[in-house]
């Protein structure tokens, strides 16, 4: 049986505070207007509350399948996505709620998607792991561990091909670094100077297996050195540090088309998914409580903003109340939305059929009994 092991350490609180002070002076942070700083805090609160509410909706049986909650890792998505510019793009794995919210997707469309509703971001065809918004430069939401890493490479390759000075932030978990797809992507990124930034969100556990039991070498990002790639280890629970050091990598990508591998040390409070019955067995309750008490990214940043004079109790309460309203509105929207009509099963499979079925030849869908489905007439498949 698994023995609880402590995940990779992140700096203790006193050091973290010092780090915050140091990174607070980075231009990318010190140039922020007070409102922008408060927005960063609010965005983390929005993710936290959204996740907590999602769990309740799941427990009430209105969200199906898997639910991979982001609690504890908020500073990574909010910090990195807050740096996105006109030509920057984002892609991630299945723990994607935080990134979707951070790039500006709406709580309503996400809650509806998780409930399998037609008003969901993917019309209920993707689910919790597969949020997409190309309009916001957000390319998913991917269910197979490390499967998104070559896609992130391709997105960045296209940017370079098209002569755009942008980059692609491609997130992955610490469990993904042992997949071949990731290593092939690192090699190609370095070989061809592709402006992709791989962000390992190291929460210490690949599902129920601790880092020590799954990955050789204590510093995961150091694997980049084999490909002569720039890399760094970052305190992923410090919003200022995440921003300051990700910004350096993004500038390297935008200006010199250089890839980087970043390892963000963070922690997830919930299980791998909600179905993870052993979330408190492969690690100790004390460990989880320690992270919540001493290293929580929202608490840490709240303290920073209080120190800086941008937040007080009244403002904090107001933010919590406003976010709560937003979340409740999203749940109502999802609850009241319809599931797609049966013929929607056959849309969005082929672009050519969606756009001009009459111009296409041959059979694309092969059920001969589709008209019996759900006692509803399914559009005659061409």
């Amino acid at each position: 049986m698994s023995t609880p092991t402590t995940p990779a350490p992140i700096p203790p609180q006193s050091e973290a505070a010092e780090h915050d002070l140091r990174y607070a002076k980075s231009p990318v942070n010190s140039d922020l207007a007070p409102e922008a700083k408060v927005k960063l805090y609010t965005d983390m609160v929005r993710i936290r509350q959204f996740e907590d509410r999602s769990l309740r909706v799941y427990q009430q049986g209105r969200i199906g399948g898997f639910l991979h909650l982001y609690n504890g890792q908020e500073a990574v998505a909010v910090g990195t996505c807050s740096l996105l510019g006109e030509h920057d793009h984002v892609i991630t794995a299945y723990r994607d709620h935080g990134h979707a919210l951070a790039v500006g997707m709406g709580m309503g469309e996400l809650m509806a998607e998780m409930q399998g509703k037609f008003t969901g971001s993917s019309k209920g065809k993707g689910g919790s792991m597969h949020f997409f918004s190309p309009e916001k430069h957000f390319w998913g939401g991917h269910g197979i561990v490390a499967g998104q890493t070559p896609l992130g490479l391709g997105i960045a390759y296209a940017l370079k091909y098209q002569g755009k000075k942008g980059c692609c932030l491609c997130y992955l978990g610490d469990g993904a670094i042992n997949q071949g797809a990731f290593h092939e992507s690192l090699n190609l990124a370095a070989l061809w100077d592709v402006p992709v930034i791989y962000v390992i969100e190291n929460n210490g556990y690949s599902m129920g297996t601790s880092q020590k039991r799954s990955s050789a070498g204590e510093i995961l990002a150091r694997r980049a050195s084999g490909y002569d790639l720039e890399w760094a280890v970052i305190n992923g629970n410090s919003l200022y540090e995440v921003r300051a050091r990700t910004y350096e990598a993004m500038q390297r990508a935008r200006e010199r088309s250089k890839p980087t591998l970043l390892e963000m040390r963070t922690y997830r409070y919930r299980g791998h998914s909600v179905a993870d019955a052993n979330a408190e067995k492969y690690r100790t309750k004390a460990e989880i409580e320690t992270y919540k008490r001493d290293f929580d990214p929202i608490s840490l940043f709240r303290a920073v903003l209080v120190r800086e004079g941008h937040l007080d109790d009244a403002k904090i309460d107001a933010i919590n109340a406003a976010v709560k309203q937003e979340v409740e509105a999203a749940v109502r929207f999802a609850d009241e939305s319809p599931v797609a009509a049966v013929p929607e099963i056959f849309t969005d499979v082929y672009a050519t059929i969606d756009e001009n079925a009459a111009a296409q030849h041959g059979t694309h869908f092969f059920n001969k009994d589709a008209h019996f489905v759900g006692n509803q007439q399914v559009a005659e498949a061409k």
Partner: protein
Amino acid sequence: MPLITYRQALNDALAEEIERDPNVFIMGEEVAQYNGAYKVTEGLHERFGSKRLVDAPISETGFLGLGVGAAMMGQRPVIEMMFWSFAYVAFDQIINNAATMRYMSGGQIKVPLVIRGPANGGTNVGSTHSHTPEMFLANQPGLKVVCPATAYDAKGLMKAAIRDDDPVCVMENTLLYGEKWEVPEGEILVPLGKADLKRPGKDLSFIAHGRAVITCLKAAEILQRDHGIDAEVLDLRSIRPLDEQAILESVARTHRVVLVDENKPFCGVGAQIASLIADQAFDELDAPIKRVSSLDAPQIYAKPLEDLMLPTADRIVATALTIC
């Protein structure tokens, strides 16, 4: 009309599409400086340079997935698999990413990607280089699969595949690369999903795709010469979308069917077509539906035995005679 090889037809198709659309680039192992492991891309690097012809390391998952990501961003990548057998290490990128991206995004994304390369046995190289994966790729909604049998179709289908807004798998054949056909000069587009009657007949239908079409044409000649049987040969050209109408019309004309393909038999393309005919044209049949496939073992190395593994004209003729 000029006589050109299947290889040249593919080369012309690629060159014309590179010239026509700046978003098209070709990536794969040895496609640029080496001029292609099978010389399909010969001369293209010299003509179009390193942006359009990109040599990739042996890293199919990496560069095939790169192609999917670039296609999402509006490029039209043509990703060469030196052999389709090598695509097996990149299957996650094809099935979980290329095929399902549009669906899982609720129609927000297009993946205008071409994956191409040879997929055939019969070359004395053993099992790992002899796979014919068209039936399990065609099993995946979201993918399109075409298998040209002639130079004309190779050119027309390749050009249509590159212009298509969905991911298309083009299955070529190393045994056909050096074969010549008459191909008119200029623009040729063969729409996906349209079968082609390669030989009309009234007694029997051979329904086939890829190189099996050529073998069926030989079998039809033998049947005509030695047995006075007039067989028609319907070339599917495209597996998904599938020209079901052409299949059913052929059955209605001849009432006897032999389905021929170079897949292994279990769940091969012929199995799908047999099910279609049984379901939709049962009353047209004057005899049981027959199938000829590759022999059901991993592809053998020994050449004399491998030659027997693929459908041969003799085996096709013998099968046809059981229902005529």
